[in-house]
């Protein structure tokens, strides 16, 4: 940015003089009381020692990496033998725009894709629906029909890559479109690998991108488990997500407990359908947040593996080790980033990514510094990816499994996190499970309370956010941000109109009627959805058919 050392120095002087509150800040920092609780508000002692682990049998509570209860990681040598996947989430504009970006990424050595869909697709409405105005191509790529999905993966052999699709309420439909593209490419479904997020419980709890009420949603999710077990065995049918629960304001413990309990709920519904636990449980995967409090986060991931192992073995009688091994993806915490002094976000993201790696994540997305302002620019996205590359290549944290294992503090935190989980599980069991708890508004209220408590702690300066409630600077220089123009929306709507005229309308109507019958009767909807998709019924039309049968969900006021 600056062409000389002198230029740098001038800029530094300039920044110092602009730091109007500098002197007061320094004075305050000297007399500052160090926070005595974690980001989640858990009190912490000044020192931890053997007394904190008295009576704990570390051998059995930890095990070895790659061995039950997997506290220390799911592989014996962790990143020595298998690095984490650097999977950056992307999507914007039309399918053609995103296809070009995907091919660029693949040409540069990326092996996995991660698709971000725009809000209309996530909400099951077409790009020309009145509610879509202003949203087309903004937060992700616009997909209205199989035609768009064909364009999205044009020239990309689906048997050679893995694809993660962040979609929930319409997950069976978008997955069906992907399967239909594979058919057209002549790729055997048994060779496909990838993930659909497909986790509706966390939508009712936190992110609120739901369409149908909880019970029919659960049924559709089990449909995908059942279909994958028979036809697409390498597909991860769900990514049970704590990320959004944390972003909505939950504590680390709430994120962990609600997410794992969501997992329990899915297993229960699948078993009620008559599925054998080991037939689908190996394909369950998890997705956690990586927030600022390094040790608390590492404890969370370790406790997650240990608790899930016990749940699957004791509660569900799983026998296949793969059913008991919790695999997860992590993403750094978007909610921790600041619009003020946005370059500081690079540092926050690096520390959060470090926590995920020390906690043994299988894949990672690092956020860009400008994400509190807009979608990332290419430069910001590259810095985010290179943050992961620096961690992997330069810091040495990949040399051994579970490097923090045995720390008095970390082991105490891990045990407390686990205990907290069992407490929440008992309360949720008493309520009759997660669907019932959601209907009563329990997790929603817990999270709203935590979000408000956190915000109040910032307002009273009990928690300091650098650049927001302390160490502010005046006259910040704005950074360049990405803007997405509205021409994508026009192109998308024109293509949709042409498709509606070109396709066989009779075939669409027959396929939709068959789907409605299946949905009404409680039969698995995957085959009828595939037929709708092959007939080029649009996503909005297919969702409308399901809306007619199941109705839509309106959140009660809590």
């Amino acid at each position, binding site marked *: 940015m600056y062409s000389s050392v002198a230029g740098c120095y001038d800029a530094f002087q300039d920044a110092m003089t602009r730091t109007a509150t500098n002197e007061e800040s320094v004075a305050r920092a000297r007399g500052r009381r160090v926070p005595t609780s974690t980001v989640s508000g858990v009190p912490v002692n000044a020192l931890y020692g053997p007394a904190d682990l008295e009576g704990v049998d570390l051998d059995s509570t930890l095990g070895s990496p790659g061995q039950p209860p997997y506290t220390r990681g799911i592989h014996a040598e962790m990143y020595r033998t298998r690095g984490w996947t650097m999977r950056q989430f992307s999507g914007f504009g039309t399918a053609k725009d995103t296809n070009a970006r995907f091919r660029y990424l693949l040409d540069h050595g990326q092996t996995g894709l991660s698709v971000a869909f725009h*809000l*209309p697709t*996530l*909400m099951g*409405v077409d790009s020309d629906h*009145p*509610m*879509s*105005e*202003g*949203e087309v191509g*903004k*937060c992700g790529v616009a997909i209205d029909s199989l035609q768009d999905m064909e364009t999205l993966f044009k020239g990309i052999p689906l048997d050679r890559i893995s694809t993660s699709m962040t979609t929930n309420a319409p997950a069976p439909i978008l997955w069906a479109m992907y399967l239909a593209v594979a058919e057209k490419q002549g790729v055997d479904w048994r060779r496909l690998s990838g993930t659909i997020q497909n986790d509706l419980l966390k*939508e009712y709890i936190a*992110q*609120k*991108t*739901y369409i149908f009420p909880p019970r029919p949603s659960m049924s559709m999710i089990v449909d995908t488990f059942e279909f994958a077990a028979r036809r697409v065995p390498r597909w991860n049918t769900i990514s049970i997500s704590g990320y959004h629960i944390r*972003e*909505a*304001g939950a504590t680390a413990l709430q994120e962990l407990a609600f997410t794992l309990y969501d997992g329990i709920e899915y297993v229960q519904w699948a078993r009620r359908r008559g599925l054998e636990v080991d037939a689908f449980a190996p394909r369950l995967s998890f997705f956690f947040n990586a927030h600022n409090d390094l040790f608390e986060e590492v404890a969370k991931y370790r406790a997650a593996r240990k608790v899930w192992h016990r749940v699957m073995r004791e509660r569900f009688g799983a026998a296949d080790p793969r059913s008991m091994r919790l695999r997860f993806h992590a993403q750094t915490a978007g*909610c921790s*980033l*600041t*619009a*003020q002094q946005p370059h500081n976000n690079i540092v926050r993201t690096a520390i959060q990514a470090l926590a995920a790696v020390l906690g043994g994540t299988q894949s990672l997305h690092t956020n860009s510094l400008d994400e*509190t*302002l*807009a*979608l990332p620019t290419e430069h910001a996205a590259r810095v985010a990816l290179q943050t992961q590359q620096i961690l992997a290549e330069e810091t040495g944290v990949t040399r051994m499994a579970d490097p923090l294992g045995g720390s008095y503090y970390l082991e105490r935190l891990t045990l407390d996190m686990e205990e907290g989980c069992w407490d929440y599980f008992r309360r949720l069991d008493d309520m009759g499970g997660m669907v019932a708890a959601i209907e009563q508004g329990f997790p929603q209220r817990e999270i*709203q309370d935590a*979000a*408000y408590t956190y*915000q*109040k702690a*910032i*307002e009273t300066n009990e928690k300091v*956010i650098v*650049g*927001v*409630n302390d160490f502010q600077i005046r006259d910040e220089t*704005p950074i360049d*941000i990405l*803007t*997405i123009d509205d021409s994508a929306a026009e192109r998308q709507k024109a293509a949709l109109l042409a498709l509606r005229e070109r396709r066989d309308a009779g075939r669409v109507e027959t396929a939709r009627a068959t789907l409605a019958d299946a949905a009404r009767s409680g039969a698995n909807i995957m085959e009828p959805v595939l037929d709708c998709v092959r007939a080029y019924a649009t996503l909005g039309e297919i969702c409308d058919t399901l809306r007619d049968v199941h109705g839509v969900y*309106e*959140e009660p*006021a809590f």
Partner: protein
Amino acid sequence: MTGDRRIRVLVAKPGLDGHDRGAKVIARAFRDAGFEVIYTGLRRTAEQIVNAALQEDVDVIGISVLSGAHMTLCPKIMERVREAKLDDVLVVVGGIVPDEDVASLKECGVREVFGPGASMRNIVDYVRENVR
């Protein structure tokens, strides 16, 4: 000012965006400040929002948008606000709004925009001082 009457605020979520952490937190801060708060729920159209403002006879509409669609959604709401002759109602926006969009939002009648990091106290104070 509204005399002895408590300030009535409509917290509104337009568009397809479901991110409601900010809306819920600010609704609670308003309640704690002694305001009457009505929350629209998610995914409301401009018509629904302005009808709710009319029916509830509010002094303030607080619009929360995090999806990037604010430049489409907010002008539409302001158009309806004018049609309904709610010129006395103070309209503020919170969410992910780039600096360069703030001026255009103000031009169409939004009085203030609160971005990431805005404090609840400042927002409450602003409403108290500016409500008619």
